[in-house]
């Protein structure tokens, strides 16, 4: 990942200047700004931590729990995407215990909906599929829940397949924070949580959707996809996000 360039800020005199901490990640000495997360600093240093709900350019949620790490001296686990670095922190991103938990969490996610890669529009271009390989998940030991989910193909250009949704909520965040339309939200809760547009209308009948397609580009799986593309062409381009954010900050100054 590219390190995020420090943004020019007006000098502040009312608080202490921004601190830089030194810490250890997997035994390596690294440094991070006080407002940077373990995930950011790890990636700056080429240390891999798996993520699913995280996406550069979107607000963090700390929800998928795949980025859990250990911090020496604490029995608890921490989500790297929402834990800020601290001086002398000793982070372990890869241990037998963490690997085991991550794989099990991924198995849970696979068991939740109907993830049939073989017939999925993003087969081969899917973050979930890739994670299974990266985390060494060869099979799911939990029962598949096989919920009766539906497909919403009412939008002229895009379609929504709830069978493939992992509830990372990237679509909701990009629509609210970047596009500013807030077309998406989530209905219900727990295992019944589901992505909805407006008042749970078919996407094609949404009054607020601008059709910008950002949600489709950030979706890690085949839940949101473009119509009329073949499986091989179905690549997602979420890279626009950090760029958009940078340009907006630029415009503010």
């Amino acid at each position, binding site marked *: 990942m590219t390190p995020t360039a420090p943004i020019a800020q007006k000098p502040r005199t009312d608080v202490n200047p921004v601190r830089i901490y030194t810490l250890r990640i997997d035994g390596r000495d690294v440094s991070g700004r006080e407002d940077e997360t373990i995930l950011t600093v790890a990636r700056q240093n080429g240390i891999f931590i798996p993520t699913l709900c995280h996406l550069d350019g979107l607000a963090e949620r700390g929800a998928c729990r795949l980025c859990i790490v250990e911090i020496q001296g604490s029995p608890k686990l921490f989500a790297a995407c929402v834990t800020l670095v601290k001086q002398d922190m000793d982070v372990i991103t890869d241990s037998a215990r963490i690997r085991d938990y991550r794989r099990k969490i991924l198995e849970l996610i696979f068991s939740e909906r109907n993830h049939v890669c073989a017939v999925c529009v993003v087969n081969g271009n899917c973050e979930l599929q890739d994670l299974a390989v990266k985390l060494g998940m060869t099979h799911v030991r939990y029962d598949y829940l096989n919920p009766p989910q539906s497909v919403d193909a009412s939008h002229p250009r895009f379609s929504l397949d709830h069978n493939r949704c992992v509830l990372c909520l990237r679509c909701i965040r990009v629509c609210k924070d970047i596009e500013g339309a807030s*077309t*998406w939200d989530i*209905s219900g*809760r727990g295992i019944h949580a589901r992505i909805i547009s407006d*008042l749970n209308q078919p996407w094609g009948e949404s009054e607020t959707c601008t059709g910008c397609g950002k949600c489709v580009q950030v979706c890690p799986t085949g839940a949101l996809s473009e119509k009329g593309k073949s499986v091989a062409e179905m690549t997602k381009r979420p890279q626009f996000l950090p760029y958009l954010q940078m340009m907006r900050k630029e415009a503010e100054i």
Partner: protein
Amino acid sequence: MTPATASPALSSPSLSPATPDKRLRIIDRTMRLHGYASHALIETLHAVQEAFGYLEPDLMRYVAGRLKVPLSRVYAVATFYHFFTLKPPGEHTCVLCKGTACYISGTAEIFRKVEEMLGIHAGETTADGKISLMTARCLGACGLAPAGVFDGTVVGNLTLDTVVNKLQAWRSHDADHRESAGDRENRNRCR
């Protein structure tokens, strides 16, 4: 049920002329009391449900426009919280408590029988619109377990017989029976 001024566009929150519906005024008052702030959403939905018995889509749309909250968020909040219902309630409402004390004292069994008898599940209303069956997480009436709420009145120490009798009485009640406004209000409050 639906107010005549249904479906005001998002952009024109002023699109609510003096309507004859008193219930709509209650909702307006709640929003005004909170300065039409978006954080009044849950309070306003409470007011909607109290006035109308459920959250009707056009009313959600109305509230969204007035409070400047996205439609999707109104729907999200309305479905996240189990107190809210998007379906009109039946003439009578039977709430059975499924709290721990009630469970230990056998509500599960009563509940199974009632579902069987009415042919509906929790959260549903019988086809004739007579009876809605609900469950409560805990009424806080654990001392009287098993407990339930029948049209707004908490009843403790339930047995299968008392519940069945009560439901039977509702069912066989003549169609000319009209509940008073007070009954309805009471019921909504306690649901």
